[in-house]
């Protein structure tokens, strides 16, 4: 199963920028004395992010698709094709840069319960979409 190194780097980048930005504006002496804490905290956060992305996996079956995720609180979400309302491929700017895509599956369960498989190769995402749309017993109108 392909994991998204791209997204990982994106998050790492955001966190780094965020942290440095927080530190810049107000260099009061008290804040600076605590700033040494930031480095190990940031390191822990990075380690967690790496680890959590290694823990995402997906499985494509004949009639449904499942997504595993979570480090401590593991979850498996299974979406049968027959209950799909529509399928969407979305690509953020960084995803476009690295040739990746996220496939999103919507059922009638509401936007909260949409299944998103991130960090797929664009070709894989499109092939998956085609496969799903051609699946027997689909509820989506073509």
């Amino acid at each position: 199963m392909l994991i998204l190194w791209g997204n990982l780097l994106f998050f790492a980048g955001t966190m780094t920028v965020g942290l440095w930005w927080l530190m810049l504006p107000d260099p009061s002496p008290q804040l600076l004395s605590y700033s040494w804490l930031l480095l190990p905290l940031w390191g822990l956060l990075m380690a967690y992010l790496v680890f959590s992305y290694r823990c995402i996996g997906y499985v494509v079956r004949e009639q449904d698709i499942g997504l595993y995720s979570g480090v401590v609180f593991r979850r498996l979400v299974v979406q049968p094709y027959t209950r799909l309302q529509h399928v969407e491929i979305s690509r953020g700017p960084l995803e476009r840069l690295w040739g990746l895509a996220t496939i999103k599956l919507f059922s009638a369960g509401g936007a909260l319960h949409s299944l998103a498989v991130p960090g797929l190769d664009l070709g894989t995402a499109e092939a998956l979409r085609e496969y799903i749309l051609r699946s027997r017993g689909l509820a989506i109108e073509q």
Partner: protein
Amino acid sequence: MSNNPWRRLSPFAIVYFTGRTLGQLVGAVPLMALGLLAIAQSDWQSLVIYGGAGALLVVLFATLFFLNFYYVQQDDRFLIRKGVLSTNLTEVPFSKIQNLNIKQPFYFRPLDLVVLTIDSAGSSQAEVEIAALRSADANRIKAEVMAFQRAAPTAAIKVETAPNAEMACLLLRRSFSDIIIHGFTNNRAWLLLAFLAPVAGQLDELLLALFARFELDLEQWFAAQSLLLVLLVFVAAVVGVFVLISILSVLGSVVALFHYRLLFDKQVYTRKSGLLSRYEVQIKRSRVQTLKYMQTGLDLLFDRINLVLEPFSSGSQDNHKSRFMQKILVPSLTAQEAPGLVGHIYPQLDIKQVIFRAISRYYIWQKMLFGAVPVALLSTALVHGQPLLQSILGLTVFCALMLLVWLRWMRYGVGICGDYIVMRSGLLGVVIICLPVHKVQQVKFLQSLFLRRRGLASLQLVASSRTVTLPFIPAELAEQLLDRVLAEVENSESSWM
């Protein structure tokens, strides 16, 4: 495909849009009014001016909305164009329509105008309202859509075999006393409470300001009285609030449920009720996604049961009222009436025969470690520096929370009856959710490392009306159910709609 022209609504729709916006704003009005009262000492003029300006803005917006609202009914779909700043075109195919409800606000009654609400499944989540139609027109549209749906089943809808020709029949009525009992046992005053919530934070300052105006100095007065008297006043105040809320709730119940009738005609359940504004909610039997069987603590005392037929619920509804309008609530059924109605809606489900399994006791441990203990510890921070008082407070909070946790654990139960998954929960009252397996949209299997070690898991069944969570059940049961639900959803021919 007929080429019908785009139509505008009747200008009376402006009244409806105004009313709707005002209803949404009602939450802000008490806040603003009270705030103004407290700050500007006796400035009634400015209050009137601000209020008037606000109302004018609302009417203006409603007019703009009306001017930009166009709709057309084609052979197999509705097209609606609306929006003031950004117009969007919404397409509602008849085959995707879940509910068609007609309501008549009291200000439309003399003119016999109604509002048609269309709810559909699919990616465009919002419900559409066509306001100020003549009631004959609305009924005609409804009949046309329903005829379309009956005549042209898509591949996703199973052709319904009508067993015996069911004629329109009145399933049940609710008497005035039933409605009053319902208002007392179920809090229908939540509307007002929800609106008062933002004010609650400023309530004490407000009260102080009010008292200051009337030259009452509370602190001195309290200090001067005996502790007993203060306690009595406090208790009287609490009882007073309870009585007030009960009265408001009964009033709310009467206004919404007056002359309640539940009808069944051609596989469609219709609920009609309403004192000032007449409301009608229709749900086709096959469209009922889940059934909620509910008794609050007070209902248990009166031995009454409430049933709620829940259809597909579109996305996020911002107010309680629209959520209320999409479901069919059957209030205050007696213990004899309830099982019969459940059997009518779900023919293979005999709710009295369901055996519930308890969930794991680990639930209690988890809530204790991650809930009761931290909260109790935090509460001790409220009373600083008095170790005895702190420990008493902490212990009391802990015991109170654990009692609640235990009560909740006692209520939890998982039952499987044929093709139905029946989930019981609640605290003082009882809530039972009945979910037919083939209505499931998505399944989630949750197993944290802690649960895994104990051979437990949580299963979430996502339906289009709600999500049913079976927490802390044995992992094998969760896996069996997972496989069974998926097999049923993927292989059976019955549609979820």
